[in-house]
């Protein structure tokens, strides 16, 4: 065989290998993912975004927001809070168990914990500690739950309650994970910044709400027009340098509204199997703690 054919075959082989390993395999692994019911929120997750938010994603893509904003939250590990959810009938036994579980408690504190259940016994402990305590309380009649708390700087910053997983992006076309954080992560921005007016002002010019921002202004998403019979209900409340000339007002275009709809739809406030966390329903009934019971 001459050198040319060897070369051809070897390059072809390497190519086939690379294609199979790095393109086909992930497809097989990820291609069959589908939505599933998340019991904490009682519905299928993820859901497709509504029409306007879908349109908004197009504007997000077109304006290239992805070059400064990621949409992925990292997590470096877990911690657990151990909560006595039900003290049961054997108060004395449970009291001694609680003091064994957390030896730094004074007798009064222990009594208060047992008396006022649900109460927290231990905060921020690791997996082995959880196993030890759960084992202690076995057959005591009391119930102890281990609440999972994801850790990591992104979560501390409030960029999301948990890490993002592949499932979160199931309906995104294209997926806009982003690779640079010139600006904050946006995957959960819809539950962090819920005010539509704030978003509109921020898009019109970031300095209206955030001094020293380097995010570009997007005035082309807005229209400056004459006030006719009276100010429009959706006109931006602009002040100082930003206020439009006398007799004029700045109103968002449908594109701006769609983009904000999209931003508000960015939420990952629900635990998933791959990334569980202690989930609290903030609206609704009183006894709202649906905890992740540690499976025995």
């Amino acid at each position: 065989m001459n050198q040319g054919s060897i070369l051809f075959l070897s390059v072809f082989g390497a190519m086939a290998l690379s294609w199979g390993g790095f393109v086909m395999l992930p497809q097989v692994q990820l291609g069959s993912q589908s939505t599933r019911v998340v019991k904490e929120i009682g519905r299928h997750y993820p859901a497709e975004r509504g029409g306007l938010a879908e349109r908004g994603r197009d504007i997000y893509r077109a304006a290239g927001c992805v070059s400064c904003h990621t949409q992925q939250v990292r997590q470096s590990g877990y911690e657990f809070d151990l909560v006595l959810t039900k003290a049961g009938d054997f108060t004395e036994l449970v009291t001694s168990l609680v003091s064994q579980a957390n030896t730094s408690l004074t007798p009064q504190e222990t009594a208060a914990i047992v008396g006022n259940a649900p109460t927290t016994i231990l905060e921020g402990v690791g997996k082995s500690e959880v196993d030890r305590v759960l084992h202690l309380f076995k057959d005591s009649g009391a119930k102890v739950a281990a609440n999972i708390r994801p850790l990591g700087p992104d979560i501390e910053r409030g960029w999301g309650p948990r890490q993002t997983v592949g499932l979160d992006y199931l309906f995104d076309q294209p997926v806009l994970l982003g690779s640079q954080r010139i600006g904050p992560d946006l995957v959960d921005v819809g539950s962090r910044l819920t005010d539509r007016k704030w978003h509109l002002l921020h898009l019109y010019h970031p300095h209206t709400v955030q001094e020293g921002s380097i995010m570009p202004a997007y005035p082309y998403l807005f229209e400056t027009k004459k006030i006719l019979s009276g100010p429009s209900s959706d006109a931006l409340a602009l002040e100082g340098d930003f206020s439009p000339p006398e007799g004029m007002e700045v109103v968002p275009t449908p594109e701006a509204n769609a983009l904000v709809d999209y931003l508000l739809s960015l939420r990952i406030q629900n635990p998933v199997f791959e990334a569980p966390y202690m989930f609290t329903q903030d609206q609704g009934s009183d006894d709202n703690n649906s905890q992740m019971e540690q499976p025995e």
Partner: protein
Amino acid sequence: MEANQSSKSTFDWTDIDASYRFPTLFLAGKAVGWLLLGTIFSLIASIKMHAPGFLSSCSWVTYGTMMPAALNAIVYGFALQGAFAAMLWMTMRLGQVRLVAPGFLFIGTALWNLGVLIGVLGIMAGHSSGHAYLEMPGYALPFLFAAYGLIGGIALVTFHKRQVRELYPSQWFIFAALYWFPWIFSAASYLLVISPLRQVVQPVRGVAQSVVDAWYVSGLNVIVLGFAGLAILQYLIPKLVKRDLHNAYLSLFAFWMLLLFGSFSGILSSQALPSWVGSLSAVCSAFVAFAWLVIAYNLFVTFRGGATKSAGLGLRFMYCSLGSGLLVALLTAWASQEATSQVLQFSLFVPGLKWLYLHGFVGMGLLGGIYLFLPKVTGNDWKAQGQWTIIFMAYATGVILFSGALLVGGWKHGNMLINAENSFVEVLRSGILPFIRISTAGELLIVIAALLLWWNVMVMVCRTYCGCLLSMGGCGILAAGGSKQLPSKTNVKKKS
């Protein structure tokens, strides 16, 4: 393998070089034009970081469209087009063969540039696909495919017709790059850009898109652009120091390592992706770095034993290119490690590496190539040697400032990001802005270098066209595709 080091033979190159004269001027001229345009775009984007209101009333020139437009102009317009030009030239030189079908090469080049133009305008119009390095909208792709069909086809036929059958290492690299590109380009753009448009087949869902995109970016960088650049280095450095490549087998070893591991390197682990992606990529990056060390060693030994100790401008371009490429490979391997990737992942470090690779490695290699090739191909010397020194100095300083600031800043930016006590505004103020300022200054220098380069190449183009028109006395030359007018000397050694 070293036998066909062309410098040794007393072979007459006029005919071969002449067959390539006008195509190369066309390719190189367009390439430097895109370099200029791309760097101007990226300068505009950079200025926007300092003044949010700068040119903000037009959706075409916002940061988020300027950045991908700049990247695509530089990758497809400059880097790939320049790489095609250099690879074709080396194929002809090493194979001692005339370019086949120069007329079709003209058409291919024209189509390619049309495709890139449509693509870049499409990005600016807001039709970007949103996938890194594949931002060009679907309607630009048919032009690029057709163009590559012609350019790549001509290169492969020329390669096939070579008179010297034995292969020099550079030819391995060239062949692999030419062959790899259409595969990954068509596969990735079909899966990511075209199929979602047509809705016929099930589009790639969810994060699998990111994996495909990462595979494409790695293949394009390490294998296509990387191999083109390495072919130039391994061809030109031995020539410039007048010595054979130290050891061709080392080079082939590196070739294999890069071929096997190059298509999945440099992907920093993301928790949104399956966890094996990051770990596998860390391994691949380490192998790529090792291959680069082997190549750098091989070239270093070649240089040390060489006759020319005083570095000319061409050699200086080559060393900058080699140094940047090696640095990028080592830094990528380092950044892919679990611990460092947690810090560097979303920081300025990532664009720092990207630009160091594109400007430092590919750009330096191509500029050096243009500096050395064009006078040979056209038979005209550069009029203004002094300007070339300025180009080199400005480009080198620009690249160091531009990507250096991002790399160093990335370390700070990343470390501030992973400490939640720094509020984001603080991160912005002391982890991002100061470094962006320096990098903008660097970009300004790069624009100056690109402008001077473009001017010099244009002068060369005009002189060559005029010279040819005068001496041949007719414009039929241009119409004929710039090749047939040459007296068809049959002095190509027939030694098949």
